[in-house]
């Protein structure tokens, strides 16, 4: 198993994709964290890019501003670790390297577990970098505007740690998705469409119904936000969040279901 893990780790770091995505994520997170920090404190009722568009932005307490800004990575940046995770499986099928992979380790369950663990490791890297960049940029902008940054509070650091954890778990969900959807283009299209469009729309629509809010909090994006405890949507009054451990369990459940399906299909089939 140790050898399989080193192999999976090397597969990721010997290609350029991971750091290209990491750089793009850093740029994106810096921009959006800086913008949100400014908008929440200075923008007043302008609302920002609220998916719903309408409705007065409720005034946020300084704590809520900090929590929302520092966890922006979980709200908007989770697509990066999830894509990295999914690609670790789909590239094997795209370039047919699944053949040498299974020649080196014919126990397919071992390959699968090694991929999940390697996904968690790369997820921790992405989660830590994304969280630090987001909080760093956000705190910098807040400090420049004379707003409190709460960086001295233990609670803030707990939130940051949970944000990194949520993002790391997203990478595992990505690996799990890749085992089910091995077509690289399809996997990326589904991921982008779901995370950037389907789930945000679902959450807004479900929030309008009396029964939908509870369901919405079990959507994967909402579960991820619950882990870090900060949610752009929740602060905008459009969602209620689970407890952090409940959110984590929901994410784990998504991963487990996908992996079980992937093991029974992709990782059982003939490799031709």
């Amino acid at each position: 198993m140790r050898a399989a893990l080193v192999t999976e780790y090397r597969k990721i770091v010997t290609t350029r994709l991971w750091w290209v995505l990491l750089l793009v994520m850093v740029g994106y997170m810096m921009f959006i964290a800086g913008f949100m920090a400014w908008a929440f404190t200075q923008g007043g009722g302008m609302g920002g890019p609220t998916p719903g568009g309408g409705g007065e932005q409720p005034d946020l307490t300084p704590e809520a501003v900090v929590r929302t800004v520092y966890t922006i990575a979980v709200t908007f940046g989770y697509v990066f670790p999830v894509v990295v995770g999914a690609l670790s499986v789909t590239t094997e099928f795209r370039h047919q390297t699944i053949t040498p992979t299974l020649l080196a380790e014919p126990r397919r369950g071992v390959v699968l577990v090694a991929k999940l663990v390697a996904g968690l490791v790369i997820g921790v890297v992405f989660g830590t970098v994304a969280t630090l960049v987001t909080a760093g940029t956000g705190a910098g902008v807040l400090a420049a505007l004379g707003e409190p940054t709460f960086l001295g509070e233990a609670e803030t650091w707990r939130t940051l740690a949970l944000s990194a954890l949520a993002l790391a778990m997203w990478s595992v969900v990505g690996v799990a998705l890749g085992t089910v959807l091995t077509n690289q283009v399809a996997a990326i299209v589904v991921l982008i469409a779901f995370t950037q469009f389907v789930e945000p729309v679902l959450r807004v629509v479900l929030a309008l119904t009396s029964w939908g809010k509870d369901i919405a909090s079990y959507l994967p994006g909402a579960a991820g936000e619950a882990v870090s405890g900060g949610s752009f949507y929740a602060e905008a009054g459009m969602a209620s969040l689970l407890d952090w451990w409940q959110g984590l369990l929901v994410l784990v459940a998504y991963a487990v279901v996908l992996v079980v399906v992937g093991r029974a299909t992709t990782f059982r089939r003939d490799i031709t």
Partner: protein
Amino acid sequence: MSPTAVEDGISVRNLSKSFGAVRAVDDLSFDVRPGRVTGFLGPNGAGKTTTLRMLLGLVEPTSGTATISGRRYADIERPQRVVGAALEAASFHPGRTALDHLRVYAPQAGVADARAHEVLGLVGLSDAARRRVGGFSLGMRQRLALATTLLADPRVLLLDEPANGLDPEGIRWLRVFLRALAAEGRTVLVSSHVLSEVEQTVDDVVIIARGRLVHASTLADLERLAAPGVRVTSPDVAGLHALVERQGWALAPLAPAGDGVPGALAPAGAATAATLELRDVDAATVGAAAFRAGLELHALAPRDTGLESIFLGLTGGGTPPPPAAAAPTTPAGGAR
């Protein structure tokens, strides 16, 4: 596990594989011995790759067994140390360098990174070690694939069409290389769809067509089938047979008749004439003997059958295989 299993030998027994309605491999049995290079031959779509993939645990057989040293591939611990296999020259991530490609599989082979440099040297790719595989020619990919199989210094090598994409010099290099590996006592199985490509490399041949075994022997035995011969046709059936018997000529055990075989003649009026194929005798001798015997001949042609013609005859070459057998390795392609 089987008590009769030869150490480092490959054993295929009653192996079958169906992809939907397509029978890609059909009740195939053969053995591959260590210390020799064995050519695994057959036209494209004969089931070679599917057989190799079953040997390697990538494809689950519908029935039958395929073992290496008596064990299924999946049951071998650290299989790279026992079996080195290269299936397609395309199984590389184009963005990875040659060295990194080898470093990816080194941990599971249980070797240090230094070995990656070593095997690159063995296949003559040292200068390209830090170049991305995406820019490699097909020949370079073949060498890198071979290097990958050698990482853990295995006793058994399975190579699928390793000569594909190699220039004549590369093929010569491969021949010397594989001969040296076999001389060290290793088992080397090399698949090819062209006999001439491996003719000077192999000791044994296993020939399949449409998923079935058509011939398995040493190359020398196969060559015996290719001895010069004569095809002779006479309206005097009894007279011809009597002449052949009197002269003690050997009848060819196998007559790969059909279009595309040099020297083959269409029998003229099957009911009123006999066509025989004679071995180890030339046309002049047969013609002279027939003339002395007063035997009327309608056709007399030398049949200088090369190995390739024998191969084509055995595999039904010349006539295209039925669509069902055309692409059994890819289920999607099987649906024409």
